[in-house]
């Protein structure tokens, strides 16, 4: 059971979380939605394409220009309020590791805090509890935000991801987060090399078996690029392959750049799994 913005989603319902960056330098869109106008246009477009959630971020994940909390708030808080005003029912997520930012965006209308750096700021879960927000608990292997993996090693990366994310989820619930609103994310590429991300994808069913709703963020990432030897911009097919495998294993939330394509893959896998009827079947039945 997953509960977001007061709505309940059964385990067979998948949700598409569209990435909306208020950044100048994110790896994929390279500042395309830095200004508020284009960012709002992006929200309208992804909602039209069937996104269930938007994930608004003010800081690129990779190392880069230092963005302090005040600047991060300037980038996201008013924008969250604008999205909330235009889309009263849309689930709004904010990608941040800072409790102060989390508090401000929740007050502006956010429903979900995407703690992409794995509990680096323990106060963020407290904010989620106080604000009645949902929380994404991610596995980073304990790294500092905005660092790249360097010679990381795990005895068992899947075990480590499960132990870390489940511990964060349990702590969040102990603090008062709704148990149906704590989501776990193995965080492909975060504190991991490509081999680690591939193994997490291959064994994602083990994370799903914990019973916590699982979010995957696969979109156009380096593990796809290194697997196929393709640059950013040519990784959609690989992303969708990883999406299909994750869906087969039972992941429930998909953080993506390309909404329509992801929705198609998720619908197709759901039909193969037998949890979604095909849209229209006539072949051989006339």
């Amino acid at each position, binding site marked *: 059971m997953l509960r977001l913005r007061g709505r309940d989603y059964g385990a067979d319902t998948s949700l598409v979380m569209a990435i909306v960056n208020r950044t100048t330098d994110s790896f994929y869109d390279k500042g395309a939605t830095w200004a508020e106008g284009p960012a709002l246009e992006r929200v309208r477009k992804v909602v039209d394409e069937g996104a269930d959630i938007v994930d608004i971020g003010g800081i690129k994940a990779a190392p880069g220009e230092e963005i302090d909390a005040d600047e991060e708030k300037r980038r996201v808080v008013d924008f969250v309020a604008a999205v909330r005003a235009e889309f009263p029912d849309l689930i709004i997520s904010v990608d941040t590791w800072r409790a102060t930012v989390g508090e401000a965006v929740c007050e502006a209308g956010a429903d979900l805090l995407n703690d992409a750096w794995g509990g680096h700021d323990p106060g963020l879960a407290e904010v989620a509890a106080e604000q009645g927000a949902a929380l994404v608990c991610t596995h980073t292997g304990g790294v500092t935000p905005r660092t790249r993996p360097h010679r990381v090693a795990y005895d068992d990366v899947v075990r480590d991801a499960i132990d870390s994310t489940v511990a964060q989820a349990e702590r969040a619930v102990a603090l008062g987060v709704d148990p149906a609103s704590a989501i776990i994310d193995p965080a492909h590429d975060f504190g991991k090399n490509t081999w680690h991300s591939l193994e997490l994808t291959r064994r994602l069913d083990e994370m799903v078996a914990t019973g916590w709703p699982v979010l995957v963020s696969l979109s156009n990432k380096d593990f796809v690029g290194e697997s196929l030897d393709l640059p950013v911009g040519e990784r959609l097919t690989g992303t969708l392959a990883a999406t299909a495998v994750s869906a087969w294993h039972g992941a429930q939330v998909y953080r993506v750049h390309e909404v329509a394509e992801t929705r198609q893959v998720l619908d197709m896998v759901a039909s193969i799994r037998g949890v979604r009827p095909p*849209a*229209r079947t*006539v072949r*051989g*039945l*006339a």
Partner: protein
Amino acid sequence: MIVGTAVCPHPPLLLRELTGGEDVAAPLREACHGALAELAATAPDRLIVVGGGTSTGEHNDAPVPARAYGGDGPRVAQAEALPLSLAVARRLLDETGNELPVELHTVARDADAGEVAALAARLAGRGERVGLMVMGDGSARRGVKAPGHLDERSFAFDDTVHRAVSEGDTAALAGLDAGLAEELMAAGRAAWQVMAAAVELDGVPVRAGVRYADDPFGVQYLVGVWTCESS
């Protein structure tokens, strides 16, 4: 005596669960329900279903083999389930809340005139009021995307059936060519001929009409109703 007949087709897609998110056969199903309501209005004591099958014979009631066509529900060996034409009839009767006793027969789709006449004789001449529910499809070769591709002869064949059902013309149905029907993949030929022969033994159709005739997927679907009186 036979007091009325209802003619319905029996594509699997009349089973709602088989067409996924879209109910592609909704207008057809509605027409079938309407025909059954008209049949019920003739006040029969019993319904006898006659549908095309691989052989001629009476059937006990049995499960509808929706799973065999891809639907949900329990797996039932096809040998222990109703044949398709009777299964669709059973579903239509359930959907319309039929409470009359029902007798189920198949007629072999390649039945010759003697076999047709023998079955008709079993169904006619009874002391009780009998409503006949006749399950049959027209040609499955009505377009290049039809199950049997295009055979131009389909249109004249199906037009003949259409006219005969709309006018209560038993002789025209009796005259359908079994070999041509087989070539055109018209599964209803023998069942329609049983209807014509049984009605001829018992009386005459006094009101006849076609309620649906279309080929949305390359197969001719015909829904019709006859109200009969003894001759």
